[in-house]
């Protein structure tokens, strides 16, 4: 191999780089969903939230000139969609899985509708921090150009882990998820707690979307998400509602997404369609291995409709 190339090292480097670049949306959506599901409700609509977040972040960044305002507005959009989900779910006899599917459709449709004029313009992007300063190899430098949102997500996972265990509201969310009667007996409004949990979940998913449009791949178009939001929801289940496991799972997913192109670049060309589907195979395999029909999943909130 010639001077500038690094040959087979591309693959592990791309997987690490991919883990950093591609994992952030998975991380934010899964952490958000983790909070929502811990409160006993599932929001499958985060795919729609992610896409709405991506679109609104791009639009606001373009019109305001500040990507950070874009990120914030993506979060607010997500929180509003979360509130809508929680609002509808709080009606009697309404199924939260169905509402999620409805909002997936609605969110995606609305984002495509409003985002039409945003496909062409170029909006200001989020900056990156250079963590590869110690290396002379440009590939390493590039792989370690990290966005602040990624760091924020990585920091959020242990914070949530701790908060679920040690803080009052963490306990409250978990209580609501385990037994709404218990929460009610303690004098709390179950609906209100779930509303907040779903809004926070939506907020984080919206921010995950802003990463897609404002950092990587870094522009708005209609194929941007390609199911990352819904995959991230699946990820929460096999991460057993544990924020730290969500972090590792997201990183594994990002790495898996980078695997296909990286393998081709070093000459493994067979079956790239199958390699591209690697993240889905991976999720399914892990779910098959970790689930069991005999007992309820460890860590599963008892009130969650999909685990009952």
């Amino acid at each position, binding site marked *: 191999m010639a001077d*500038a190339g690094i040959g087979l090292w591309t693959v592990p480097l791309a997987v690490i780089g991919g883990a950093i670049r591609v994992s952030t949306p998975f991380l934010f959506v899964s952490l958000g969903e983790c909070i929502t599901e811990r409160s006993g409700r599932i929001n499958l609509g985060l795919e729609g939230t992610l896409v709405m977040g991506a679109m609104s972040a791009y639009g606001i960044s373009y019109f305001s000139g500040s990507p950070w305002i874009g990120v914030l507005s993506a979060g607010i959009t997500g929180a509003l969609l979360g509130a809508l989900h929680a609002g509808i779910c709080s009606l009697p006899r309404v199924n939260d899985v169905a509402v999620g599917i409805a909002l997936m459709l609605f969110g995606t449709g609305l984002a495509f509708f409003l985002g039409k004029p945003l496909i062409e313009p170029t909006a200001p992007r989020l900056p990156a921090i250079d963590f590869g300063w110690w290396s002379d190899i440009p590939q390493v430098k590039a792989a370690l150009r990290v966005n602040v949102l990624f760091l924020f997500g990585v920091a959020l996972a242990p914070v949530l882990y701790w908060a679920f265990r040690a803080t009052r509201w963490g306990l409250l969310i978990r209580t609501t998820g385990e037994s709404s009667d218990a929460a009610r007996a303690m004098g709390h409004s179950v609906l209100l707690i779930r509303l907040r949990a779903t809004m926070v979940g939506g907020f984080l998913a919206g921010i995950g979307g802003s990463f897609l449009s404002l950092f990587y791949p870094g522009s708005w178009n209609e194929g941007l998400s390609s199911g990352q939001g819904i995959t991230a929801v699946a990820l929460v289940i096999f991460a057993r509602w544990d924020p730290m496991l969500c972090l590792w799972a997201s990183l594994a997913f990002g790495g898996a997404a980078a695997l296909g*192109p990286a393998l081709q670049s070093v000459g493994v060309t067979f079956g790239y369609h199958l390699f591209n589907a690697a993240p889905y195979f991976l999720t399914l395999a892990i779910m098959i291995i970790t689930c069991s029909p005999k007992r309820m999943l460890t860590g599963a909130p008892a009130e969650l409709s999909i685990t009952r």
Partner: protein
Amino acid sequence: MDFSSISRRRLLQGSAALTLGTALGARSAAAADTTIGFIYVGSRDDYGYNQAHAAGAAVLKKMPGLKVIEEEKVPETDAVEKTMESMINLDGATLLFPTSFGYYNPHVKKTASKYPKVRFEHCGGLWTDKDPKNAGSYFGYIDEAQYIAGIVAGHTSKSGKLGFVAAKPIPQVLRNINAFTLGARLANPKATTQVIFTGDWSMPVKEAEATNSLIDQGVDVLTCHVDGPKTMVENAARRGAFVCGYHVNQAPLAPKAYLTGAEWNWEALYPKFVKMMASGEGIPNFYRGGLKEEIVKVSPYGPAVSETARKHADEVKAKFMATGLTIFKGPLVDNKGKTVIAAGTERGQKDPELEKMDYLVEGVIGATA
């Protein structure tokens, strides 16, 4: 047929003077406008394939006596048959441009036999003489423009490594990759092109990952063949690589990194078609051409293109414009060492063998399967 004698501007002025409305409208009600329907498979402002067609449609919109209707994101299922019929039945369209390759078989064929009075112009060059006479196919030899882009890329690359982000290993894509590589090797005989297939026409995350992987391999000039090159162009430019565009001019996305690009020139072709219809001579069922016929064009050179590169590229372009130039000629060896075109054989643009291309030429790193 010699189309080059009419320049684009003269054509536009000419057609305006012809008062197309009366010429075409004579067939239907007196002063009614001729309605032309455009159907796109994706979003018409994708900075790529669909936008190129929409730019052509936009030129027609400005011409008097024409009414242009458009529908985007129409899938390649019976939905497109219904869209075409709806444009005919509800809007009175008499000329249709179903622009996506996958619309032709079976959808355009089926609808064309059902509506013999409507003209169907499909982009893709698939028409054969067994197909309905009111259907037609047009396509451009965009590999000519890729060849020139390759020359510029070959001169500009310092590492001699070029990258190509491609959707699927189909003949049209392989032909572009090969032409780009052959062009690059005119400039730098040691140049190589590394290819990554993303698997589909619009996969932003995969395209971005492919771009990064290529640059990690030392590639410093990239081009692509996907529906929307925006992702590749922006991500390559961010990492300091140079890019050659595709479909339309992407220079506004990366003014410094943009070298040149292979573009469609539908805004020149579509008015010609309309004029042919108006004059009564009709559009040929099979219509193809390259740079000379103004169906494709090369983007203006960017600031990073050296004087040598410009000169070399312009020379080759002049040959295309004058007499035509054969890109694929023997002896040509593929990247597995097999001779694919024997010495002495020249495969001109119209050679049907080129339509079946299933190899990557020597100098391309990658495989077709």
